[in-house]
């Protein structure tokens, strides 16, 4: 009366309803879990309905007799047990291992389940094998390809972080050229032996992975270690002490679009350009506690930085002492831009004001109004 698909989806529906009810009792914050489980209930019920209406999409159901042969050997029980081991280890070692275990467990159970079903689908072993492939290959191939590519790309990135910049660029050119040449060869020689193509690809991949392992063990290049220690995000509004800062940060930042204002330094004049205002401005309104991005565009010959003078703040020591509260960009050479992120929580105390200045450029400032 009820099709197998219907029973399956109704089972999922009932379990989801139970999980939903339990989540309502157990969880404090039910918003996400509640929505997800509700959606699962609806989706499973819908699929169950479709399954019973379409008779599992098989008008000839019941025609294929089930196989009574012994099942073939399977690797999935072994993989499942490895997943369980990862799961248990993850509880002790790290959450990454734990979640890895969950992924392995779910994948293995899914494979195992489909294999078990396909081996009993009919008496024809070939048909059963093709049924399994038809169901799982569209998932297995992309996943395995993504995993393989991921490993190769990750290994390549390790190599690039280890070798110096010039060697890295050369390697990139060589690697890219080899891929291009290989692609051309495969294209003009379509009758080439598949094993030869596979061997070239495998050798290339193994070489990159081996290089990646060697690079990962020898560590990243010295320059990057130094740059990491320079703490570029710390306020450092005096002499530039960083050696490896990005001299044109906005060139690589998506934040450059929709900024609150662009502060321009041209011929010793500091002005603010704001979307909507026709003329350059000398003051800028910033809402309290709203993260605000500004771009500093230096069009003058020397290297300059933009500094936001935001009153005073408590100094680290001695106790009770105050110091100037400064936030600034890094140096910008002529024609280059730097980004400044401001978040001002309170208006300036009465009789004072917040402002943007450029050290070395006298008599120029932009007033920051915090209402």
């Amino acid at each position, binding site marked *: 009366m009820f099709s197998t698909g219907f029973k399956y989806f109704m089972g999922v529906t009932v379990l989801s309803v139970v999980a939903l009810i339990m989540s309502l009792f157990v969880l404090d914050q039910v918003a996400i879990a509640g929505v997800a489980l509700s959606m699962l209930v609806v989706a499973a019920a819908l699929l169950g309905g479709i399954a019973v209406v379409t008779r599992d999409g098989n008008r000839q159901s019941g025609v294929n007799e089930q196989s009574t042969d012994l099942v073939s050997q399977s690797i999935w029980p072994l993989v499942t047990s490895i997943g369980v081991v990862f799961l248990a280890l993850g509880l002790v070692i790290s959450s990454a291992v734990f979640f890895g275990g969950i992924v392995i467990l779910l994948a293995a159970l899914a494979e195992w389940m489909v294999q078990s079903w396909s081996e009993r689908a009919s008496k024809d072993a070939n048909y059963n094998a093709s049924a399994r492939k038809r169901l799982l290959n569209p998932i297995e191939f992309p996943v395995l390809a993504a995993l393989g590519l991921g490993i190769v790309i990750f290994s390549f990135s390790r190599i690039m972080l280890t070798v110096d910049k010039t060697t890295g660029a050369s390697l990139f050119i060589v690697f890219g050229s080899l891929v291009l040449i290989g692609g051309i060869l495969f294209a003009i020689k379509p009758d080439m032996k598949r094993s030869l193509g596979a061997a070239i690809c495998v050798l290339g991949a193994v070489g990159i992975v081996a290089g990646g392992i060697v690079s990962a063990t020898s560590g990243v290049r010295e320059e990057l270690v130094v740059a990491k220690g320079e703490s570029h995000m710390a306020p450092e509004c005096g002499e530039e002490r960083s050696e490896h800062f990005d001299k044109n940060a906005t060139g690589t930042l998506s934040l450059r679009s929709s900024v609150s204002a662009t502060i321009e330094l041209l011929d010793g004049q500091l002005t603010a350009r704001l979307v909507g205002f026709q003329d350059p401005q000398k003051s800028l309104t910033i809402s*309290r506690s709203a993260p605000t991005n500004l771009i500093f565009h230096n069009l003058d010959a020397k290297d300059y930085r933009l500094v936001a003078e935001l009153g005073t703040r408590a100094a680290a020591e001695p106790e009770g002492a105050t110091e100037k509260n400064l936030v600034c960009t890094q140096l910008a050479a002529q024609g280059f831009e730097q980004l400044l992120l401001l978040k001002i929580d309170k208006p300036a105390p009465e009789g004072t004001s917040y402002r943007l200045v450029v050290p070395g450029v006298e008599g120029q400032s932009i007033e920051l109004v915090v209402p």
Partner: protein
Amino acid sequence: MNHSAKHLYLKHLVTSVLRMVGKKSRTLFGVSLLSFIAASCAKNAPQDTWQPKGPNAKIIDDLQQPVFAVAGVIGLIVAVAVIYSVLKYKDRGQPIPEQTHGKPALEITLTIIPALILAVVAVFTFGAIFKLAKTDDTEMIINVTGQQWWWEYDYPVQNDFGITQPIISSGQLVLPVGTKVLLRETSRDVIHSYWIPALNGKRDAVPGRIQTLRLEADEPGIFTGQCTEFCGLSHANMRMEAVALSKADFAKWVANQQAAYVAPAKDSLAQQGEAVFLNQCVRCHQVNGLMRADGTPAIAAPDENVWSGSAPNLTHLMSRNTFAGASFDLLSKQCRDEVWNAPSDVIGTKYLAGVSQDCLNQKDLRSWLRNAPEMLPMYANPTQLAATGGKYRGMPYLALSEDDISKLVAYLLTLK
């Protein structure tokens, strides 16, 4: 198939459908259809996108009217074709007809026709987008900042409109009619979306970014809208209202907003309310000009108490019609109706009258002060939400006594 045969066949189809759905389902279907039609004809639909009240909304309307008509006709044709096919060719055990593969002429035709329709729509759509994105003819700027679950409006200094010092308000956006206003939108916490259908389309307010939205109203009036980007527990309550005033009335509004703080009369209930405000509310809410007992300005510190870092500025609160992010009315129903239903030539005068003691919606305001989280879902108890680092989202329960509430209401009424 001749005409009578077709007629008989269609009759058979309709009878089959009606038999399938059953009497109860038919009643339900009929009621649903009638409700849908009735709702579509509603006159009092303040957020109706088909009633533009300004040139920007008109640009959208001019685009959506023909597109909707074309899409409607196509949708109807497709729906009828699908239903016809489903009913005519449903599985009755008949043999599967001959299977064919590909019909290039038909496929190319059915690809080219929609592509042409979409290309024509795209031409007009791009035109509308560019018109709506224009900012170089802006006459007035208003900064709009969204946070859970209200909107803040601040008017930077603009001498052409008499704004000589920044004005800060919330809940209701006040703008002059016939003026090209540009909203510079951002957000303090999560992504929100600003939408007043009568005046323009939607624009997301994104933390760290400034997004612009043009607004212009043809005539004085009050236009409603609501946040259209899911932003948390009270997203559905995050409303906004745009109040369009004549230029003369707008000038009066500006003058009132820039007026200096007037302290409550000595020994009055309102003065006691000011003390309660200084003791409790000023931790988050700013009232410009309010001084502490020691003569220093009372500067609110919402950044220390509220997750978004801000709470509505209550200076001139009673010049607005709403509170708590426009979720509740400050005016009683009768007084509100008098303002909202006023003809466009007098709505400004009625709006500028603000909230008097007689017109105050005491019930909702007192309930809000008594226990705000009971009125609006806000995650106001930080102990239940570790992610905020002990800060509130929205207004918390303050355990005020009824006496303190009366004092506070008296004080708030002085903030004209």
